[in-house]
């Protein structure tokens, strides 16, 4: 006890449990029945709706919203799950402001979209709370598929195949499934252990076995996978982390943001998790925003998020950026790290201001320093552990429009494969579509 936001160094317990619980509660509270009715009534039931086109999983949004409006959220949820079996998680984590809600005609017309994400959550929560599973498996095909990774891509692929009558085995390196749903997504987007509940609910369809603690490439080879199964799907995500490549990166308190986020997600008691008084985050994507915001929520006194380009180039959406600043994160644009200096236990990061000239990023020559107890690196993840036989392109497993890799009988999708936006929802879409292509290939 006794620690506060202004305690020097990297310490735990900057906030008491109650304050932490308040900070880490649901980012968007679930809609009540009445709110859902009012929100659903705003949908115009557009023809060939732009929101559907914008959804990577092509959920029939006007239909599911109408089903809420008519008092049948369970039927609504089924409409969602038919396209996106992780519709519950997607309702929480999709950057709707750059997907469906961005093109909703009411956003275009009045700057106030239909709340598609929250409505999706309302419907899916309702069905999942009932503890039922809306799909039944088709007659067994007698064929088996092996899947690498129990993240969104692998799970979506597995579920679709299970429904189509396949027996599926998933090899998952970690001790828990869900992929970044479990280890990456910001805590306030997925409260109450939702990722595990969703996983359990998804598996209740039957026909899917997950073997935890099995790393493909170490415990099992691609060769044996191809021998054991009629088809193989890789949904291994991006397990590596990009390096800063600047002096001082190896210092103790220079940490991979994804590791810290994973610690937050797995912490039984957030008041035991230590965070710096001064935190510097380097990066410009969702990971950067998430680590910055969560450090602040844990009780860091000041958090600076430094991004090398300008506001519009940042891959975190404007909504995410606003979220960060509203929580007290300071975003510094157009600066890149030059070196990290150790000053006793504390650090100091030297940045160079940048500008973009004719598409090229250059340093202006001006520099500044930020003091930090902790520095989080969030400049992207990279593919590691992919079998050598698979052709890569731009650091990802090369796939065609059906998710096929260069190796026969092997498909890939999600973050580890080319194409897509590195979002949960695109991973789901790619996993699902690969399943359909596997089915067509094996039995079509």
């Amino acid at each position: 006890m006794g620690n506060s936001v202004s305690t020097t160094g990297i310490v735990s317990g900057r906030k008491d449990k109650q304050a932490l619980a308040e900070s880490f509660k649901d980012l968007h509270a679930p809609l009540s029945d009445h709110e859902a009715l009012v929100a659903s009534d705003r949908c115009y039931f557009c023809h060939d709706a732009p929101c559907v086109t914008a959804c990577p999983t092509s959920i029939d949004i006007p239909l599911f919203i109408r089903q809420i409006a008519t008092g049948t959220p369970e039927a609504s949820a089924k409409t969602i799950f038919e396209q996106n079996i992780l519709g519950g998680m997607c309702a929480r984590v999709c950057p709707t402001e750059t997907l469906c809600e961005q093109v909703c005609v009411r956003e275009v017309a009045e700057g106030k979209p239909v709340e598609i994400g929250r409505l999706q959550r309302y419907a899916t929560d309702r069905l999942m709370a009932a503890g039922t599973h809306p799909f039944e498996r088709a007659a067994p095909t007698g064929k088996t598929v092996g899947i690498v990774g129990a993240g969104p891509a692998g799970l979506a692929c597995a579920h679709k195949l299970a429904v189509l009558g396949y027996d599926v085995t998933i090899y998952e390196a970690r001790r828990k499934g869900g992929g970044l749903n479990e280890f990456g997504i910001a805590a306030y987007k997925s409260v109450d252990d939702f990722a595990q509940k969703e996983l359990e609910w998804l598996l209740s369809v039957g026909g899917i076995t997950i073997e935890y603690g099995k790393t493909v490439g170490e415990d099992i080879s691609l060769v044996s996978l191809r021998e054991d199964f009629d088809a193989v799907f890789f949904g291994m995500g991006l397990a590596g982390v990009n390096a800063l490549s600047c002096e001082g990166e190896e210092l103790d308190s220079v940490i991979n943001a994804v590791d810290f986020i994973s610690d937050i997600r797995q912490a039984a008691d957030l008041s035991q998790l230590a965070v710096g008084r001064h935190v510097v985050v380097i990066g410009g994507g969702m990971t950067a925003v998430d680590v910055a915001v969560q450090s602040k929520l844990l009780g860091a006194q000041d958090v600076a998020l430094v991004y090398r380009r300008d506001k519009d180039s940042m891959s975190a959406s404007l909504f995410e950026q606003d979220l960060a600043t509203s929580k007290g994160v300071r975003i510094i644009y157009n600066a890149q790290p030059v070196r990290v200096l150790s000053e006793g236990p504390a650090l100091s990061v030297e940045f160079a201001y940048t500008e973009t000239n004719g598409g090229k990023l250059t340093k202006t020559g001006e520099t500044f320093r930020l003091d930090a107890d902790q520095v989080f690196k969030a400049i992207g993840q990279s593919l590691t552990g992919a079998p050598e036989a698979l052709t890569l392109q731009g650091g990802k497993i090369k796939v065609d429009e059906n998710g096929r890799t260069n190796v026969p009988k092997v498909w890939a999708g999600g973050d580890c494969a080319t194409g897509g936006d590195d979002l949960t929802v695109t991973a789901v879409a790619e996993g699902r579509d690969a399943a359909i292509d596997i089915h067509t290939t094996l039995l079509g």
Partner: protein
Amino acid sequence: MADLTSNFVGITSPNPFWLASAPPTDKEYNVRRAFEAGWGGVVWKTLGSEGPPVVNVNGPRYGVIHGADRRVLGLNNIELITDRDLYQNLDEIKRVKADYPDHAIVVSLMVPCEEEAWKAILPLVEETGADGIELNFGCPHGMAERGMGSAVGQVPEYIEMVTRWCKQYYSKPVIVKLTPNITDIRKPAAAAMRGGADAVSLINTINSIVSVDLDAMAPEPTIDGKGTHGGYCGPAVKPIAMNMVAEIARTPETSNLPISGIGGITTWRDAAEYMALGCGNVQVCTAAMTYGFKIVQEMKSGLSQWMDEKGYASIDAFKGMAVPNVTDWQYLNLNYVTKASINQDDCISCGRCFAACEDTSHQAIIMSEDRVFTVNDAECVACNLCVEVCPVEDCITMVEQAPGTVDERTQKVVVKEHGDWTTHPNNPSAVAAE
């Protein structure tokens, strides 16, 4: 400032907004507060004959059709006439009238269809000093089963007979309240007129089952597992009521019969529309039951602002102005051609006009690859469906085609002259033009 004072068949009130005979006017407490809140008059909740008062159900008596955000669109009730003692009501009426001499108090009555019954009650009402009576020939449930209310209102001869008794035994204005639960509203209106009625008021509530409880498998409101039809009122009934008002107002026989408009009036605009169709004043029930007495403030301020804008000094200045424009279909000008036109600046590309026209109308809207919606004049029959389904008001408008131009759909030149069905070549019984 427009003058809102009202003189309806000799009954004066500070404004034309009366509360209809219903729960809002059931007792002294309500009526005093209604007057204080600004209502011009009330029609007291219907009184029955002397004797043990009627009883109401003790379970739920209302059901509702909700719109978005639980807006009350239609209200259904199975309540009966007043369930309070006759003399208590009469005493209260007398007291309130004495305190509010400038406000209108009309007493609604429903007694059996026998001369003696009316002869007995009318002097008692006269006694109170109330400004007039309204005959409740409209209540569609409960009382009708006992040969009163709409059971009388559905038989023109009874209406005429009872009205005549009232004119005989009562000195002040007699208003006959009509039931909409009939096929031709002109018949009871004419009967009331023949009986000597000073005015008619309409509509009372419409027979309705508002919803069915799909678990209990019974109509709602459900009383111990059973339900009965009720009377429907509120915004949903306004179009039905206005048509009935217009029918009476434009029929030569009844065109001079004063009308008190009732049915779904919720805003000043509703009231103005009723008045444009010939009503001398209006009565309100559901809107008050939904929002409380205060809504009359908006009705008054709105009507008065609009009258000022239009330069109407009094209600008589615009009363009935829309009546000459209500006609039969056969007299509508078939030479008047319009085409839908989409304002691209306002269009939000929702595609509803396309879905509606493509699936259910005339395939006259073209949708481009990039979601631009345009009207194909060669197919547009000007049905107005797209205008009504477009979520953006005034985004699609109907544009009149100038005489002399060619209607691309029919390839005919639009002519200036009026030409309707009565003279149309396709009409076997057409009268030759000119």
